C-alpha cells in the first residue's frame, strides 16, 4: 500500500514521462529566395511569378514547327492525336460550345503559359526558355483571334490579356469540411 502511494506521488511529480508535442518541431530547412524562385513554376492569374522574357506570334509560329508541336497537335492546331489548339467554330459560337481548347477556354493567359512551360513538349518538358514560352503562348492566342499577330507578350502584358471566356465560368465552391458536397443535393 505504501509502495503504491509512493508510485502515485512519483507519477504526480512528473516521474513518468509524457509525450511532448511542441508548437513547432524545428524540423526542415529554410530555402533561399533563389531556391524558391527556381522551384516555383506555378504561374497564377496575376502573373507575379512570370520570369523576364518576351515573344510574339510570328516567333511562335516558327517554334511551333521547330519544337515538334505540329507533329502531335496538327500543322494548324487541329487534326493531330493531341488536344485541339485552334477553334474552327464560326464567330459568335459560345466558348463553352467550342470544345475544351486551352487558349480559348482558359480564363487567364497565365494558365496557357503555365501549361506549356510545365508540360510541353512531350518527353522534353522543361526545356523551353521563357522567350519560347511567351512566343508559343502568343501564337496560340493569335490563331484563336485573342490577340493581334504583332503583339509582344511579356510579364507585364500577358496577365492583362482579356480571354474570350470572360467571367462565364463557374466560381469555385466555398468548400467546408464535413459537409455535403453541394448544399441541398441529396446524393
Amino acid at each position, binding site marked *: 500500500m505504501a509502495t503504491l502511494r509512493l508510485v502515485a506521488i512519483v507519477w504526480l511529480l512528473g516521474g513518468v514521462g509524457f509525450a511532448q508535442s511542441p508548437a513547432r518541431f524545428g*524540423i526542415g*530547412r529554410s530555402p533561399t529566395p533563389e531556391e*524558391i524562385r527556381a522551384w*516555383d513554376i506555378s504561374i497564377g492569374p496575376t502573373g507575379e511569378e512570370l520570369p523576364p522574357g518576351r515573344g510574339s506570334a510570328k516567333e511562335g509560329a516558327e517554334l511551333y514547327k521547330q519544337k515538334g508541336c505540329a507533329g502531335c497537335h496538327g500543322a494548324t492546331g487541329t487534326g493531330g492525336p493531341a488536344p485541339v489548339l485552334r477553334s474552327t467554330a464560326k464567330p459568335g459560337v459560345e466558348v463553352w460550345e467550342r470544345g475544351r481548347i*486551352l487558349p480559348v477556354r482558359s480564363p487567364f493567359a497565365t494558365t496557357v503559359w503555365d501549361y506549356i512551360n510545365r508540360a510541353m513538349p512531350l518527353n522534353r518538358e522543361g526545356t523551353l526558355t521563357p522567350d519560347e514560352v511567351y512566343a508559343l503562348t502568343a501564337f496560340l492566342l493569335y490563331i484563336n483571334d485573342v490577340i493581334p499577330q504583332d503583339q509582344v507578350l511579356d510579364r507585364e502584358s500577358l496577365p492583362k490579356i482579356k480571354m474570350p471566356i470572360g467571367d462565364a465560368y*463557374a466560381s469555385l465552391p466555398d468548400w467546408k469540411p*464535413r459537409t*455535403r*458536397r453541394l448544399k441541398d443535393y*441529396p446524393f
Partner: protein
Amino acid sequence: MGSRRPDRRELLKHGAALASGLTLGAVAPAAGQTPASGQAPASQPMIKGSKEMIAYGDRSRFVTSVRIPHPPGGRMSPDQFGLVFHVAAPLQDSVGVITPSSLHYVATTRGSFMPDIDPNEHRLMIHGLVDRPLTFTMDDLKRFPSVTRLHFIECAGNRATPRHRTVQETHGMTSCAEWTGVLLSTLLKECGVKSTATWFVAEGAEEVKGASSMPVAKAMDDVLVAYGMNGEPVRPQNGFPLRLVVPGFEGIFSTKYLRRIKLVDRYYLNYNDFGHLDQDPKVAALDYQIGPKSVITYPSGGQQLPGRGFYEISGLAWSGGGAVRRVEVSTDGGRRWNLAEIKGTPQRMAHTRFGYAWNWDGSETEILSRCTDELGQVQPTRAQIAKFWNVAMDASFRVPGLDNSIQPWRIARDGSVQNGYA
C-alpha cells in the same frame, strides 16, 4: 423472398464433423497406417523454397488476378514506348477492404513514364503565403508525428457504361490502402500559414509536374502527406517516395511524387485545374468531394452462379463525405431494399465491405446495392439524378461529377451475370 441462413441443424452437424476430424488429427497415426489427419500425402506437389521466395514472398501460381488497361478498348498501358496510362483494379477478386499495392489502380494525367526517384535526393518544399518557407527531406518527414489511416482513392473516370462487362471495367478505378505519413496540417503549422492563404497548389515531380489547386480548409482537415502504403513505402506507380492523399476528393487531387506545396490567395488554375473548369457552379462543386457509392463485387458481371441456393452477396461501399453508415441490397430489381451487414467498423473515406445472405431461387432477377454515408447522403439511381437535374435520361446523359449511381447486375436463369445497363 429474402435471405435464408443455412439451417441451424446443418451447421451443428457440420461443426460436429469438424470437431471429430480435429480429434483424430491430434492422435499420431500408428506406423504403416494412412494418416487420418488430412495431412498432405507425400505425392502432393510442393513449392520448393528459394532464396528469393524467403526474401520476398509471391502469391500462389493459382492466383492470377491482374489489373487491366482502362477504359477497355481504349489506350493500351503500357504502350509501345513504355508509357503508362490508366489501369483498373480487379475488384471482382477482392476480399476485405484493402487493395494490394500491386493491384491498386493507376491513373496518369497523360501517358507517363514512371519517375524513378532516389528518396535520398527527394525534397518537399512548402512556400508561398507562409511565415517560414521550409524544405523537407524524406528523413525530416519521418521525424514528425505520423498517422496511419485507411483511405480509398477513386478516379473521376470511374464510370459504368453499357459497354463495360465486369466490375473491374465499371468500377476498377477505385482502390483502398492503408496510408502512413504526416498530416499536411502538421507541416503547414510548422511553416505558419498566413491568414490571406485560401488555396494551395500541390505539384508532383514527374515530367509534366502535374499540379492541382485545393482549398486550405481541406489541407487543415485531413490531407495526408504519405510515404507509407500497406505497411511498406509507397510504390513507384502510386507516387514513390511521397504523395498527397486527399481523402474523399477526386483521385487527381492526390498528387503523386509530391515535391511542392504553395499557399496562395486565389484559385490558381494550374494544369489539372484547367480540366476541372466548368460552366455551372453546381456541377463544379460536384467535381471535388465524391458522393456515396457502392457496388456488388460478387456476384458481378461475367461471373457464373453454379445453381440455385445460398450465396453471400458481397460488395464495397464508400463515400467522399465520411464513413459509410448503411448499405442496402435489393435482389428484386430495386422493388424492395434490405439492410446489408457491414463487415468491421467503417472508416472515414475508406472502402467498407458489406455482405448480404441470399438464397437464389433460380429465377431471373437483378441485384443492386446502395449506400448512405454519415452526412445522410444517399447513393442515387440514374433516374433520380436525371430527375434532380431535370434532364432526359437518354444516350447522352452523364451523371454530373464522379458517377456514383447504383450499379445493377442482371442474373439470368442459367446463373450468368451481366451488366444491367447492357
